[in-house]
């Protein structure tokens, strides 16, 4: 701040060099010594009074006006600025005695461990010291290496005698008192202590000699002061270590710790910092007085300890040494969600925002949002006055701030700001000049950002065009509900108004709704028709909807706002009366007039599809040909979201977003208006079951109950045939569950068949707008089995669910089967079971939101700075390469058309080309020619850039080959020459063949051209922040996953964790996962006996399982234990166990300390074990413990393997190994090690290496997501896996992993453990580059990715070459 007092007064303004715009490039963290604090401060604070009697801050008090303006009325005494101008100034507080800084306490301790407590030098021999110093000074060493080195040095410094001064050094550790350091000699004492003790024995008879010294801050300070610079460097201290000890406290400016008057100025409410500092001043002065007044030493020490605690509280009020503090220390201000880092630096409060309830309006375009007039009057946009808008803006100024299309402020070029309420509007309007800026009210067409929390992916905030409308809600087209995940049950949404033209353009281009129709998660369309739109489309396109001329024309006019022309098609039925079908209406909707050059071609199977393609009897095959709906009743698959070959996706890919958006607009208008007239409601008669259904249901339930009863009785008799890997109870549960599910399914099927087609729930479930067949059958037929935790209702009472049922009852009704429907009503017990299931769902949602939220945050922090560079590499902010080519082909996941991330949907594209390029009399190509043209074409695009990926090339070739074969087959069937094609008009058959599957050269050429050009346009653009997109794409589906799900890995009873817990395990890179499973392939996989032999060689077999008997034989001479093996069992289990091998196993057992001479094999199946020599008294016990332990000796198998299950898949056998130790499984005889997989990432890393671990991460995430029916582009998972492995070891996305991946202190501080990272950074004097996303946001600098990747370079004139010799004399 300019100091007005000291400002030099000159006749001319002094010349100040214009240094141009400056950008913070890096921040250095450091510590301040007492002296430096003093120099920086404006005032010494020593007065413990805050306000004087006149209610003004006292001089040298904590609110001294020299430390800045305290409130809006105050003026800074140092710079004379007011509250907004003065940034505040520091004061200082001199401590009488030094104290430790808690933040550095551990560092101080570590330093003390490494230095001599007498001379302050490092406890390393000279050559060691030199070696380590060299290593430490290595310019290539990064932070993690330096930290590791420091640790190594610390380990080396455990010498008890200082090599420099020869004095003794004990062990330094934290003293029992919380914040003190003890120097303990007890370990390093030799005989000398005894010597001393005897020498001193005469003083006191019972004296305990002190071997532990307390190192006070003063001693530590003096030690640190003695440390030479080089030693500091060895310990990675950038500055002097004495700074870690507090001698002066910097008192922060008044403005950061405001003081508030309460009770009409009688008393004041002080900030925590102020009150802590006040306490410190008090204690400090008491301590000084005590010292000066020569108070007893213990009192001084007490006071000093008190001071120490208060200084600790000032820094960190939650430190363990501070007993329940009521204040917030400095650390508390920084850390946590509401702290400075996350609450104020990473996310800031903004102006020009609005928020209200949302409601739907199908008459709006999908790109629009209706804003209430009330809101529009407050939200403004600063429009610059120019020749084009001066009249409009004059009008606005005349209207003023209260009349709607008005304005609030005028900004003059000199910076003054006029509020239109306080100036004369007429004169202001007439005085308006070019170059002024008018903050006018929001008007139609203005660019606004629209957002709903939780913002899980980038489509949660999109850019709309404003439509100012009456009433009080924000309104938008229902088609846009999906990306926001909004409904209208009282949701609120936020609105932001960008304030510059640049911001508007960028928002429109990057965040515009029309540019975000697809999700980058997998390229599926997200903005699409929902609910009523689907229902009405479904009803309109029914085969038996016919309209006469009047109603058809009326409906055509519903589509638009009477602005578009519509070409009425020829009626489908001309005679006996003219009738149009609903499908023709849809053709009009897609292509209203001939001028709209949209030729939609598409084939989709709807939910109701049954058979024989277009001729499907229930009309479920949707076929559009050149924008004409040929057949099919349209439902969710065609119009809805989450599909790649629906109508809107095809429009978007084949044409552009405008085509798709305008079609959506038309559909929304038509549907809403049509269904408003048609009516669609639901009533009690919709869920009344018919007589037939009731009988059928009763029969089914009776049959099912009987079946369950039979199962239970056979179970209680023990006659149940077990399923592989299950015990009897599990088998029973599985079978009963199967039967009960069957009941509901069949009841549901009958019910679906019985319902009339006009039944509203049926219509909704068929077209996919809401509800599923299960929902309907629950209402009409039978609610079905209630489950808790994936099982039938658990026992809440002793051996039964409710006291109504007999003990141990396993009947369907006693275990939560609800036979009634919602229509008939549930019985009391059924209702109770239903609430059990319901509660589980509620708890689940509550728990998973928190879990997935945290997961998303971690993923985002881990991946935020990954972006694509111009060389197609994926790098982090500091330029480290994470991937050389994004996703192995550099394609944008949002633009992928095919399934599984394939760039193009060739079938669809080919169909489109065939339909839009009619042969028009040109001749067909022969199969040979087609192949040749393709080859030529691919030849041309060979180079890696501008070419295809190998994968795609193969795909294309295969596709064309298929087409060629098809043509060949057709010709063969028509008995034409397969390879030579005659002219089309030469014969009837030739013509027919051409119609069926011929390709003309023009068609093939257009097809290949489109493939190539479209493929090229699907590459990711440089600068794309694919890291953030990837994080969102993995985090967002997490919120939709149910928390605890298991699924069977092939066999029942082999459960694999799925859902959020599994994803968490994977991205945390957990060492212990809940269900490790190794999938082992057998070398001979067609023989079940081989599989059994291999299984038994792996499965853990203990001695107890294969023995017939353990007997203690008490004989007079020597008692022993005799073991008899069950050889028949051993044979039937195919295990290779004999007495000799058992002897070996017993000998190798770690806990049984038996020697070879104690065990004797008597014969092949008998062993004799005598206990080791012991007291005869203890012999009995010895024998019994031995007998207890022997059955647990593992005689065969891998100890870490719990279970091995044989899995049969199409006649091939496979082993599923539950447990760890991949290496041992791979090494087992009969296992094909090269085809053996594990789901344990860390183990794969240890066993097979980092690349295998990467592959494993990708596969596991993919599998987990697939288990929940979610498709995520593999490129996102690749990126995540690459990030987790690119450092050479698997790093989890946790605070430990992230701190190893990233260097930036600010980023880490804004993530977790804020204070720790900051203290460590200042310990080692870190220089933090501002380049990553978090850092840039914190510093308020545009970041280096996305549009920020562009940098302007200036071409510099070539510098004259310097000559190193004088000019030649004669040239």
């Amino acid at each position, binding site marked *: 701040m300019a100091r007005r007092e000291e400002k030099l007064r000159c006749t001319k303004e002094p010349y100040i060099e214009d240094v141009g715009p400056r950008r913070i490039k890096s921040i250095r963290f450091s510590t301040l010594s007492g002296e430096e604090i003093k120099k920086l401060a404006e005032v010494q604070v020593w007065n413990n009074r805050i306000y004087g009697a006149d209610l003004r801050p006292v001089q040298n008090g904590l609110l001294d006006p020299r430390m800045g303006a305290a409130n809006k009325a105050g003026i800074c005494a140092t710079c004379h600025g007011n509250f907004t101008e003065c940034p505040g100034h520091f004061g200082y507080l001199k401590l009488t005695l030094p104290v430790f800084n808690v933040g550095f306490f551990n560092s101080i301790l570590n330093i003390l461990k490494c230095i001599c407590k007498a001379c302050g030098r490092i406890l390393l021999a000279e050559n060691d010291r030199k070696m380590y110093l060299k290593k430490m000074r290595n310019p290539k060493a990064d932070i993690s290496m330096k930290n590791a080195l420091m640790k190594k040095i610390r380990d080396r410094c455990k010498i008890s005698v200082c090599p420099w001064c020869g004095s003794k050094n004990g062990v330094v550790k934290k003293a029992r008192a919380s914040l003190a350091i003890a120097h303990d000699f007890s370990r390093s004492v030799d005989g000398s202590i005894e010597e001393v003790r005897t020498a001193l024995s005469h003083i006191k008879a019972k004296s305990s000699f002190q071997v532990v010294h307390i190192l006070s801050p003063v001693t530590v300070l003096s030690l640190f002061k003695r440390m030479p610079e080089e030693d500091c460097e060895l310990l990675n201290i950038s500055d002097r270590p004495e700074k870690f000890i507090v001698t002066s406290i910097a008192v922060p400016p008044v403005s950061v710790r405001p003081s508030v008057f309460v009770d009409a100025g009688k008393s004041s409410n002080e900030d925590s910092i102020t009150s802590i500092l006040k306490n410190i001043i008090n204690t400090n002065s008491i301590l000084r007085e005590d010292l000066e007044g020569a108070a007893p030493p213990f009192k001084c020490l007490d006071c000093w300890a008190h001071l120490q605690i208060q200084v600790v509280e000032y820094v960190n009020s939650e430190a363990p040494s501070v007993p329940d503090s009521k204040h917030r220390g400095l650390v508390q201000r920084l850390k946590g969600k509401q702290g400075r880092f996350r609450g104020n630096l990473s996310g800031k409060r903004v102006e020009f925002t609005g928020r209200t309830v949302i409601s739907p309006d199908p008459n709006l375009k999908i790109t629009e949002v209706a804003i209430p007039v009330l809101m529009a009057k407050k939200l403004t946009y600063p429009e610059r006055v120019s020749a084009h808008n001066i009249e409009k803006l004059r009008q606005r100024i005349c209207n003023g701030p209260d009349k709607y299309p008005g304005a609030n402020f005028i900004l003059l070029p000199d910076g003054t700001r006029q509020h239109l309420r306080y100036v004369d509007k007429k004169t202001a309007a007439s005085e308006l000049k070019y170059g002024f800026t008018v903050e006018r009210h929001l008007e139609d067409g203005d660019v606004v950002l629209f957002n709903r929390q939780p913002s899980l992916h980038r489509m949660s905030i999109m850019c709309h065009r404003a439509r100012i409308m009456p009433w009080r809600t924000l309104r938008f087209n229902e088609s846009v509900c999906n990306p926001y995940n909004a409904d209208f049950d009282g949701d609120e949404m936020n609105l932001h108004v960008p304030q510059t033209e640049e911001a508007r353009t960028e928002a429109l281009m990057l965040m515009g709704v029309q540019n975000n129709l697809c999700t980058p998660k997998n390229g599926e369309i997200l903005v699409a028709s929902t609910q009523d739109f689907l229902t009405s489309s479904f009803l309109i*396109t029914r085969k038996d909807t016919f309209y006469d001329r009047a109603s058809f024309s009326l409906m055509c006019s519903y589509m638009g706002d009477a602005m578009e022309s519509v070409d009425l098609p020829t009626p489908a*039925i001309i*005679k006996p009366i003219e009738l149009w*079908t609903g499908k023709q209406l849809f053709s009009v909707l897609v292509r209203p007039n001939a001028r709209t050059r949209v030729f939609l071609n598409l084939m989709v199977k709807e939910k109701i599809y049954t058979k024989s393609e277009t*001729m499907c009897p*229930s009309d479920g095959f949707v076929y559009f040909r050149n924008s004409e709906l040929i057949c099919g009743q349209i439902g969710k698959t065609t119009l809805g979201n989450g599909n790649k070959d629906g109508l809107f996706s095809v429009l978007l890919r084949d044409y552009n977003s405008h085509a798709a958006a305008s079609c959506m607009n038309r559909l929304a208008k038509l549907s809403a208006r049509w269904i408003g007239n048609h009516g669609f409601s639901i009533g009690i008669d919709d869920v009344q079951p018919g007589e037939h259904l009731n009988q059928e249901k009763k029969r089914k339930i009776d049959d099912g109950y009987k079946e369950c009863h039979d199962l239970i009785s056979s179970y209680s008799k023990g006659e149940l045939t077990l399923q592989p890997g299950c015990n009897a109870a599990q088998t029973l549960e599985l079978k009963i569950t199967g039967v009960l599910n069957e009941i509901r399914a069949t009841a549901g099927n009958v019910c679906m068949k019985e319902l009339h087609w006009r039944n509203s729930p049926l219509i909704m479930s068929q077209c996919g707008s809401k509800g599923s067949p299960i929902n309907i059958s629950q209402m009409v037929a039978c609610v079905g089995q209630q489950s808790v935790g994936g099982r039938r209702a658990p026992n809440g009472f002793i051996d039964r669910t409710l006291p109504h049922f007999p003990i141990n009852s396993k009947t369907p009704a006693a275990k939560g089967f609800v036979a009634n429907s919602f229509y008939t009503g549930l019985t009391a017990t059924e209702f109770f079971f239903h609430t059990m299931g319901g509660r589980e769902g509620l708890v689940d949602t509550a728990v998973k939101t928190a879990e997935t939220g945290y997961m998303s945050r971690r993923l985002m922090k881990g991946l935020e700075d990954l972006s694509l560079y111009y060389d197609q590499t994926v790098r982090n902010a500091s330029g480290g390469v994470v991937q050389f080519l994004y996703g192995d082909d550099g394609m944008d996941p949002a633009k992928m058309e095919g399934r599984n991330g394939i760039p193009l949907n060739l079938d669809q594209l080919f169909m489109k080309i065939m339909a839009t390029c009619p042969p028009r009399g040109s001749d067909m190509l022969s199969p040979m020619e087609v192949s040749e043209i393709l080859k030529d074409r691919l030849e041309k695009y060979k180079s890696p850039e501008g070419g295809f990926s190998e994968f795609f090339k193969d795909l294309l070739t295969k596709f064309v080959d298929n087409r060629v074969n098809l043509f060949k087959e057709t010709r063969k*069937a028509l008995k034409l020459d397969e390879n030579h094609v005659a002219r089309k008009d030469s014969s009837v058959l030739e013509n027919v063949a051409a119609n*069926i599957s011929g390709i003309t050269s023009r068609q093939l050429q257009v097809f290949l051209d489109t493939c190539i050009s479209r493929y090229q346009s699907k590459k990711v653009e440089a600068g794309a922040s694919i890291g953030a997109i990837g994080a969102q794409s993995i985090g967002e589906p997490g919120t939709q996953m149910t928390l605890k799900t298991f699924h069977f890995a092939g066999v029942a009873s082999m459960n694999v964790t799925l859902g959020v817990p599994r994803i968490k395990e994977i991205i945390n890179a957990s060492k212990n996962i809940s269900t490790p499973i190794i999938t082992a392939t057998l070398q001979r996989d067609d023989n079940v006996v081989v599989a059994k032999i291999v299984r038994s060689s792996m499965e853990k077999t203990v001695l107890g399982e294969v023995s017939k008997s353990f007997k203690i034989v008490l004989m007079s001479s020597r008692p022993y234990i005799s073991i008899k093996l069950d050889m028949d069992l051993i044979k039937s289990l195919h295990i290779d166990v004999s007495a000799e091998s058992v002897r070996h196993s017993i000998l190798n057992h770690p806990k049984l300390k038996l020697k070879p001479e104690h065990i004797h094999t008597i014969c092949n199946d008998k062993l004799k074990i005598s206990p080791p020599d012991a007291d005869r008294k203890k012999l009995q016990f010895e024998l019994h413990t031995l007998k207890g332990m022997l059955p647990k000796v593992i005689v065969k198998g891998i100890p870490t393997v719990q279970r091995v299950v044989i899995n049969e898949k199409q006649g091939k056998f496979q082993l599923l190994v539950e447990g760890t130790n991949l290496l041992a499984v791979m090494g087992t005889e009969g296992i094909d090690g090269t085809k053996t997989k594990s789901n344990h990432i860390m183990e794969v890393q240890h066993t097979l290496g980092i690349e295998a671990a990467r592959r494993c991460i990708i596969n596991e995430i993919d599998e987990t997501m697939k288990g929940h029916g979610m498709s995520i582009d593999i490129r996102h998972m690749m990126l995540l896996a690459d990030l987790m492995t690119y450092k050479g070891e698997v790093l989890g996305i946790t605070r430990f992993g992230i701190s190893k991946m990233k260097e930036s202190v600010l980023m880490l501080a804004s993530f977790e453990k804020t204070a720790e990272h900051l203290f460590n950074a200042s310990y080692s004097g870190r220089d933090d580059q501002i380049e990553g996303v978090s850092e840039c946001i914190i510093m308020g600098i545009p970041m280096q990715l996305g549009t920020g990747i562009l940098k302007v370079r200036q071409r510099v004139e070539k510098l004259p070459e310097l000559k190193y010799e004088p000019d030649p004399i004669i040239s």
Partner: protein
Amino acid sequence: MVELLFEDIFILTRLDPDGKKFDKVSRIEAQSEQFDMYMQLDVNTEIYPLHVGDKFAMVLAPTLSLDGTPDTGYFMQGGRRSLADKFEYVMHGKLYKVSAEASAEPNVKVEIYASFGGLLMMLKGDPSNAAHLEMDQRLFLLIRKV
């Protein structure tokens, strides 16, 4: 004179082979007499009821004008004389697919598919009958009971 694409007399063999799914529309199966063609056709039975055993003449024509001028696709005012005058039920639509029947029979059959605003027709028979038909051709289907 207008050149007809196909002309034959059919006998209705079955109504709604897969069960009645729609109130106003029925799918009929019919067998022709002359060329032994098999046909499936969706007919609006509400306005033109048909029954099993009915015999009807069916004609496919590219245009309704008697002089053979191609169809413009636009609505013509007034009761001009046309081909439709002789028929009771007339539909307008488009041929969208030609395929060979997937069977190992020696005489392969051709299937011709047309859609009349969602009312579908499938005509199966000898390839020679499909000589004049082209993909995406506009068709008028005319029926008269005999």
